[in-house]
């Protein structure tokens, strides 16, 4: 736990990842994936700058990791089947 200057490493180097930064709370719109329309082309996965479209196993439908999704909407815009809709956060 970092509490004092004494806890800093001897040289300025990183100690942990950014994964505790929940960038999901930047979001005003969230993507909703319609599995009826989705053809699992994974174009949404390919173009997500925040690695928030996740594909667990081959053949799975993509899911959205809302902890990190910043709600940019690229996935919805790039989806060839209009299977992703951006909806306002509650």
């Amino acid at each position, binding site marked *: 736990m970092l509490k*004092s*200057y004494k806890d800093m490493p001897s040289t300025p180097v990183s100690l942990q990842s950014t994964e505790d930064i929940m960038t999901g709370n930047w979001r005003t719109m969230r993507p909703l994936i319609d599995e009826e329309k989705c053809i699992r082309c994974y174009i949404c996965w390919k173009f997500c700058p925040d690695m928030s479209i996740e594909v667990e196993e081959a053949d799975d439908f993509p899911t959205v990791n809302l902890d990190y999704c910043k709600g940019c909407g690229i996935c919805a815009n790039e989806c060839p089947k209009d299977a992703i809709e951006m909806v306002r956060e509650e």
Partner: protein
Amino acid sequence: MMEVITSNYAAAYAAKLSRVEVIAAYPITPQTSISEKLAELVDSGEMDAKYIKVESEHSAMAALIGASHVGARTFTATSSQGLALMHENLIWAAGVNRPIVMPVAARALSGPWTIWSDHSDVISERDAGWMQFFCENNQETLDMIIMAYKIAEDREIMTPAMVIEDGFILSHTVEAVDMPLQEEVDDFLPPFDPEFKIDFKSEPRRYAGVLAPDWWQEHRYRRMLDMERGKEKIVEVERDFKRRFGRSYGGLVEFYRCDDADVALVIAGAPTGTAKDVVDEMRDRGKKVGLVKLRSFRPFPGEELVKLNDMVSMVGVFDKSYTMGQGGAFFQEIRNALYSPDGVPIKNYIGGLGGRDVTKKNIERIFEDLLALNKEGKVDRIIDWVALKGGPGRWE
């Protein structure tokens, strides 16, 4: 083995003896022959190092910062404009704990052009976070570079070091230099082994990433501690060096014949030896004068220098640079260090600028001035420019 070489060659051989792994060099007078000698040593295979031809001093320092993060022992050399161009990367190197060792053939900063010696280049970098060691002769240049690696690379210090040799006055003067054997240096100086380095063995890290206000002050505090630890380390390393090689230089400061002196002059770099001759001659004539050789300007040896208050009744400080709007840099800091209600009077002498020779006569006049003022118990002016054309007649 005794070699008859310039301080520049001594610096190059010191790099070789220190088994430097990466060199980045850009030519500038009067440093150039260091880079050339190293290229020669690498070319002949006498030295096993990677030699990077860079397109500027700024890039030389940048390349070494990169190489140092991968755990390589690194070396470059520069002067004057080159040092000024490096400025940004000097601060970076210190801020991210890269223990680079760099001789500086000290030369005046230009505008208009000058290529000759003074300390204005290195003084301009006193706040860069580097250790700064001034050398009196070619032997000290060689010894100090080897010692500087040991000090700089200490895991508790990890701070870069400038080893300063007065341009031309040392860099181009040949003297006898006792060259230690490679095995002896290997035994004294272990390979560079930092706690953090990119070696693909430990987990991946980001080096030198963004540090926000919540931790910046703590970061600076840590760097301050790194530098402060240098003070003890210098003395310790020198003691070890003396044991092995038989030479030592007095730690952070050398007090030369100060014990029963009435007045003392603080001086750094190449004029030190000249001043020692003057002290000896004046002592022979019964004048009680002493000399203080400032070896380490960073870290600043305030605790050592304050002893002067008890040793002598007046102190002069000789600066080979001038800080516009203020005075000599050594003077300002030494006056601060000596300040107390019972502090002795202190006077600043400026000289040796832009290659002006610092002669024995100049130094003798300074001592005579100090002795005369000491009789009156106070200084006349805070600052005198030595041998200034049109200045006070006593310097003629």
